[in-house]
């Protein structure tokens, strides 16, 4: 059987594309993707910490129970998923190095914490100057902050580790990971912890990209205020048992979550419509485009159904084909960043 030109090209690429890494630096998780043989490996760490009393005894208990911690001077912080469990146990909130998608301005330990978490997830480069693409949020439409500081700090830090870092928009990374079959044309939506990132791409080129500074954390906070609970507890319920397709017999927290999910989805779609209205010289897109939903906040059962329902009512100014979840909603940003890094590495 004769091989097509594409297949030959892919064979030639084998062995080369193992270089390069993709990192998703999100408000909730830091995740790194790299290729090992015919598999993609994902290393991840929850981006949260919780302060506990620092004694030798506590440290020993945590070591024995394999609970991750970080010590800074006289402070002991539990990190990762266990930080969330500790926070719930003490009925308090976790602390986070990132807030609304960028390095938290109000968290004094943000910088060393995020550096350590990135280092533990990304590891050392395979060779000096290895290309790593790291995800960055789009400029927020509804908040005053700028993302440049965040980008420069992460970029600078990855350089100190020996990498050649390059930023990639979070929504764009989703398109690279999920829309190859459609020539990288469509809308990538990442419903993260701190932000929703949106990118409309045409033939792999971003047409517009932006973020809104409302997402999972906002939902948690609003629900917590509405039902007098802690945001950490609301978040735990949201992540473990929320079903947005359920219509009746909802608990107080589920009802509030359902209301705020509606609000968030509507808010995002209206902002997309506004960006379409603002955009000049939109390319002529003949075929209906696909919309990919991704990110931790999109995980509850029934999310895509709810999204479609609201989209049907609000309608975008271009024809929409399928609206679907990313194949792996928690991995698609890191995977998209890895695709960009691999493509760049194979050019060398």
């Amino acid at each position, binding site marked *: 059987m004769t091989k097509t030109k594409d297949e030959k*090209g*892919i064979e030639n690429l084998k062995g080369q594309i193992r270089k390069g890494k993709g990192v998703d630096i999100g408000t909730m998780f830091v995740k790194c993707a790299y290729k090992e043989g015919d598999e993609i490996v994902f290393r991840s760490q929850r981006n949260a910490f919780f302060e506990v009393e620092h004694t030798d005894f506590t440290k020993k208990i945590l070591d024995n129970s394999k609970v991750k911690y970080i010590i800074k001077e006289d402070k002991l912080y539990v990190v990762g998923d266990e930080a969330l469990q500790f926070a719930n146990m003490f009925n308090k909130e976790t602390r986070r190095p990132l807030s609304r998608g960028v390095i938290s301005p109000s968290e004094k330990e943000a910088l060393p914490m995020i*550096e350590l978490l990135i280092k533990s997830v990304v590891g050392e480069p395979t060779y000096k100057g290895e290309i790593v693409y790291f995800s960055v949020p789009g400029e927020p439409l509804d908040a005053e902050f700028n993302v440049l500081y965040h980008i420069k700090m992460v970029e600078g830090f990855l350089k100190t580790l020996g990498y050649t870092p390059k930023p990639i928009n979070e929504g764009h990374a989703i398109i690279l990971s999920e829309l190859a079959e459609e020539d990288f044309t469509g809308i990538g939506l990442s419903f993260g912890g701190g932000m929703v990132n949106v990118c409309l791409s045409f*033939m792999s080129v971003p*047409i517009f990209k932006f973020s809104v500074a409302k997402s999972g954390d906002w939902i948690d906070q609003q629900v917590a205020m509405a039902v007098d609970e802690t945001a950490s507890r609301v978040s735990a319920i949201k992540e473990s048992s929320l079903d947005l397709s359920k219509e009746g017999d909802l608990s107080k927290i589920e009802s509030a979550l359902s209301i705020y999910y509606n609000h968030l989805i509507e808010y995002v779609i*209206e902002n997309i419509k506004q960006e379409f209205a603002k955009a000049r010289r939109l390319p*002529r897109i003949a075929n209906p485009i696909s919309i990919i939903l991704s990110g931790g906040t999109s995980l509850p059962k029934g999310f895509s159904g709810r999204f479609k329902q609201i989209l049907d009512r609000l309608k975008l100014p271009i024809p929409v084909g399928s609206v679907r979840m990313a194949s792996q909603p928690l991995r698609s940003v890191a995977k998209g960043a890895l695709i960009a890094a691999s493509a760049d590495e194979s*050019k060398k």
Partner: protein
Amino acid sequence: MGLTGTEADIINCVARLRMAKKDQIRRQVGFSLEYIGFLCRDLIRRCYLVFSEGHYFLAKDGIKALLAEETPKIDRKLLKEVAEEVARQISGELKRTVKGIKITVPMNIGIKKETGFETPPGERIKINTDFDFPIEDESLVLESNIDKIGIKIEKEKSDDMDKTVRLFKKMHKPGGNGLASDSQSHKKGRKR
């Protein structure tokens, strides 16, 4: 924070009816009474609506803000009518209270948008952000057991990744300073 479509629908509905009950809004806008109630409460909190004796009204500050903003879906003509009515009412009340003082009601209440210095279209200032910013590794002072315990690892078959990389390379010219800068947008689109 801007208004969502349903919120704008609610504002338009209240403007049309001048005063509206929750059920009237629900009939015009859709959704459940609970959701409409929730949105109205939020609009009251944000000073767009006021609630009195079972009815929702447009708040004066809200009208002002909506006229000043370029809020999509808001019926600005209708809002201006309401604003003029409100202004007339205020003027009438003041006239009754303070005799002899003339208060004129401007017919066009539209609020002038403060634009400041505007860059002519097509001449957007470009700021070079492609610079190296040296960072110290602040995490060196931290002690941790993360490496000892290990990090969560998941794996998946790469399946078509090579093909995707190849296709992406073909369509896009990688290199440069990443894929996050706006300067790469709007220029390389190809027509299908």
